[in-house]
């Protein structure tokens, strides 16, 4: 029975930002020279390394756009043969479907976090149906144009 020398952890970095692309985040990690393994995916990154390095890297990436970058743990390391599509002959890996559904909700969650950060009152009841404000429309147009 041998023990692992250093605890290795893996994290998903899911990017739902208008400003940061997965490739930007990956470049930032390469620049930081942390000894971690990075895999770029359609929704963000998967990073594996020692606990201290991963926590530092993840915090650094989160600061790029903190309300629109989401992080979660992953059990299997990057490129693990038991989960990698290359060795399983294609099809999404188990667990991807749930992640994909949640990734679809992230723009809403990100916008809600932005509002929370802007010190809006915590207890805000859902509004009745009303006309769209000009300022809200401007925000929507700006968000769409910046994509």
């Amino acid at each position, binding site marked *: *029975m*041998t*023990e*692992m020398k250093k605890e*290795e*952890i*893996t994290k*998903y970095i*899911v990017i739902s930002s208008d400003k940061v692309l997965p490739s930007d985040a990956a470049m930032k990690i390469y620049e930081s020279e942390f000894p971690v393994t990075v895999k770029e995916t359609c929704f963000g990154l998967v990073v594996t390394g020692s606990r201290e390095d991963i926590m530092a890297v993840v915090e650094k990436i989160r600061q790029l756009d903190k309300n629109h970058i*989401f*992080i*979660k*743990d*992953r*059990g*299997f*390391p990057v490129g*693990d043969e*038991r989960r990698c599509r290359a060795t399983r002959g294609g099809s999404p890996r*188990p*667990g991807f*479907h*749930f*992640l994909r*559904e*949640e*990734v*679809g*909700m*992230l723009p*809403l*969650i990100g*916008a*809600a*976090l932005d*509002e*929370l950060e802007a010190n809006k009152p*915590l*207890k*805000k*009841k*859902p*509004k009745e149906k009303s006309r769209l404000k000009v300022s809200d429309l401007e925000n929507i147009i700006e968000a769409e144009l910046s994509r």
Partner: protein
Amino acid sequence: MAKVFIYPINSLILSDLVERFGHKPLSMMNQIREKVTSISLDSPPINITSEDPKMGLKYAAIEVPPGVRGRMSLIGPLIEETEAAIIVENPPTNFGCVGCDRTNELTKYLVRSKDVPILEVKYPESEEEARDFVNKIAEFLESLPKEKSEEDEKAKEEKTAEMEDKK
């Protein structure tokens, strides 16, 4: 820092929000990591030892399907550690480790029967609902104690002792 149980147990949104507000999410991914990366265990990915079915039996009877007991051997220890819980109903899909509805029912029942603060919300479908969802979770997490847990203090003490040994 409170240990917060999340349901769905592999949720990205909940796990991120709990960590963002300074608490520790109790999620399935950490349990899975132990099973698949610890080389002291026998034969990944079938890392089921003779201890696992016994652990599952603690939460579900012998005539309950093995899928439930297997899942409970991973989820059960998390429920025991729980200091607070966030349960989100109507998840968009249920696959993999959350793919068994009976296990999900049993998990929710065990969490609800524990004497811990619980927040129950629904997955948002519109902007207003998302705002409400995030506000409720933020308010709940901010109401939990933020002091460092005993485990953290123990780990810190061990680290300082190690540093002193090195000197």
